[in-house]
């Protein structure tokens, strides 16, 4: 789990694409986003797709003709950011917002049982795969020990490992254990992943307990604020209630100051904010839906807490967060 992993360097593994999250931003930024070192890979994928799904890409290799007791029923199909809509339509916006690079998919069948579908999302980095998993995995799914992190719901089994986010549909209730076995087989076929994203280390790990699996990463528009970008957050149990600790990273300290000012201006409309003796420009605010809000700037980070109430445990979490942000470039 994140809290127990060795501390990696505070490098932000998430791609800069994550800044573009909504359909509008995606469209506006499309020109520059995909042109990069990934272009040859995408071109290869497209050529493979044009040739009828011939083997060649990493996803194709994972979707081998035989996986355990399952046999592939069709050629592997591939999709890129441009045509993902053809496969999952409007949901493509959500996936692309998290840095999606390519999808390979194929049907598999075990004996004469109903067919299952395996979708392999290539996200580019483990941080992006983690971020998508935590925002897209079925909310009520049970945790499964598959890949770096897995989950199983009624309709699908899903996991992430390294830069890949994998979905295995569950064709029927009777097939669930077999679908889990297929997912496990796929995970084992993947090379060792990069582990947990470095940005999780920004979150407090001492004091009040962090709610398991509550860590999330939002590429843009945290709290609906356009300037709060690349936000990692997690929920903590403070006494009988919960609070959310967050850290957003801007490109420059000046941009972070703008982001903080924008959040403060929003909260000022609800109720007068008060100074908070932490970081630069720290303040306390109140929102009917967010509860108490504490926020401050440290370098190019905006850190804070939603559901803040003045008490030692909450302040200790903020102090831990502040310390971590202070030591991060």
């Amino acid at each position: 789990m994140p809290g127990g992993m060795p501390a990696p360097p505070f490098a932000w593994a998430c791609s800069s694409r994550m800044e573009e999250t909504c359909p509008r931003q995606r469209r506006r930024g499309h020109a520059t986003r995909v042109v990069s070192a990934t272009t040859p890979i995408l071109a290869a994928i497209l050529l493979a797709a044009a040739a009828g799904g011939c083997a060649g890409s990493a996803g194709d290799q994972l979707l081998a003709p035989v996986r355990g007791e399952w046999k592939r029923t069709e050629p592997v199909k591939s999709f890129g950011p441009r045509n993902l809509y053809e496969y999952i339509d409007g949901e493509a916006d959500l996936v692309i917002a998290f840095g999606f690079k390519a999808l390979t998919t194929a049907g598999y069948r075990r004996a004469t049982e109903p067919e299952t579908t395996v979708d392999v999302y290539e996200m580019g980095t483990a941080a992006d795969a983690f971020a998508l998993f935590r925002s897209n995995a079925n909310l009520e799914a049970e945790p499964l020990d598959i890949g770096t992190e897995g989950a199983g719901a009624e309709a699908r089994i899903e996991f992430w490992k390294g830069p890949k986010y994998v979905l295995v549909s569950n064709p029927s209730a009777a097939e669930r254990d077999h679908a889990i076995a297929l997912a496990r087989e796929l995970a084992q076929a993947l090379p060792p992943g990069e582990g947990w994203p470095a940005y999780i280390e920004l979150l407090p790990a001492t004091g009040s307990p962090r709610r398991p699996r509550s860590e999330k990463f939002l590429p843009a528009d945290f709290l609906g604020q356009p300037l709060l970008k690349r936000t990692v957050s997690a929920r903590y149990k403070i006494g009988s209630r919960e609070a959310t600790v967050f850290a957003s990273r801007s490109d420059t300290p000046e941009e972070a100051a703008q982001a903080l000012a924008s959040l403060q201006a929003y909260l000022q409309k609800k109720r007068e904010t008060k100074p908070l003796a932490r970081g630069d420009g720290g303040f306390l605010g109140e929102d009917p839906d967010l509860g108490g809000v504490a926020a401050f700037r440290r370098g190019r980070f905006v850190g804070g807490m939603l559901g803040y109430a003045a008490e030692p445990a909450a302040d200790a979490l903020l102090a831990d967060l502040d310390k971590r942000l202070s030591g991060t470039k």
Partner: protein
Amino acid sequence: MERRQFLRCTAAGVGAAVLGGRLPGVLGAESPPERRNERPSMKYARLGRTNLMVSQICHGSLHTNKERLPLLARLYEGGVNLIDSSEIYGGGRSEEAIGEFLSQDNRRQNAFIATKMDIRAQLKAGSGVYERAMARAAASLKRLRTDCVDILMLHGCSTLIDWVTNEEWLRAAEDLKKQGKVRFIGLSEHAKPAEVLKLAAASGRYDVAMVAFSLIKGDWPGLGRADIQAMDEALKAAKEKDVGIIVMKAALRAEDILAKVSEPKLRKAGFSAYQLCYRYVLGVPGVHTVVCGMTNMTHVEENLAVPGIDLAARQVDHLRRVAAASGVCGFCGTCLGACPKGVAVQDILRFHGYYLHGHREEARAEYAALEPRRQANACGDCGRCEGACPAGVPIRRRLREAHDALA
């Protein structure tokens, strides 16, 4: 509150049935429309036979989660009273966030919830449809923290054309209505909106349809988004059956189109391309509301202003003509039937578009994969394609440009 909500939902339906002598979901115009959270700054429309007065801007919540609750709050303040979700958005996080938001301050009583269920796998397999539908509805209600959703739609991510009248789905939907868990039934359709809307209207079983169309036909191969001309007949059929119409994907290629509009009256100062596209579909007869995806406050403020944009009917017609003559290829494929040489005009212009948007290697690879006889240099310069093109695209010149760039 849950109990009150349940009573309100069922009482509204049963009461209307008694008073109107009809079943809920087929309320006539004689019943007073149901109004919620109406604010002077927003405009409202009667959503067909549901008789719900819905805000002309509907919140599309694919990207909604607990970290974006302030957006819901601002939309609610701005008079938005229809929130659209799906059980699959964010693995249920969208419904969860909406449930949390609406559970505060009596908001549930002041808003209409539309959500969708994904039972395509069962529909495709031809088994388990009813059971899955009932189970998914129960899960949605739990996340939404309510005993009753106002509109439950069959979620169609590609096309529902084979399943519009699936009896198992419709039986589940009707049972959910009888149980007071759902008030009105609908479907959402991306790929064949005109065909599916006509089928849905003819069936008489649907109260609402969410359909994808915009100024011009879309550019995603295999999905074939419809333009407004293609929707005319379907919208008329829906109107005859008083089906409520929610439009999605209305701002498709908004910037491409509006970038070419120089008419000052249409380039109203301060209005974005998105605003004008949304406003445009609101002016289409038979359309009641438009669903807009929003992830930040800038989008919210823009979209809240849309219904108030003064776009007279003649200006709407003009905008439609401008869009049609904008020279922006909508990849409708009309040119393909006109070309005697079989040149892959639609694909070539699409590849050129990728090229111009920076995807140069990909575009060249795709162009190279075309048979030589279908590449741009096979064009005989007869001009029939241009005569057929509904958008007035200068195809021959564009083909030459494309070949120079891609060959």
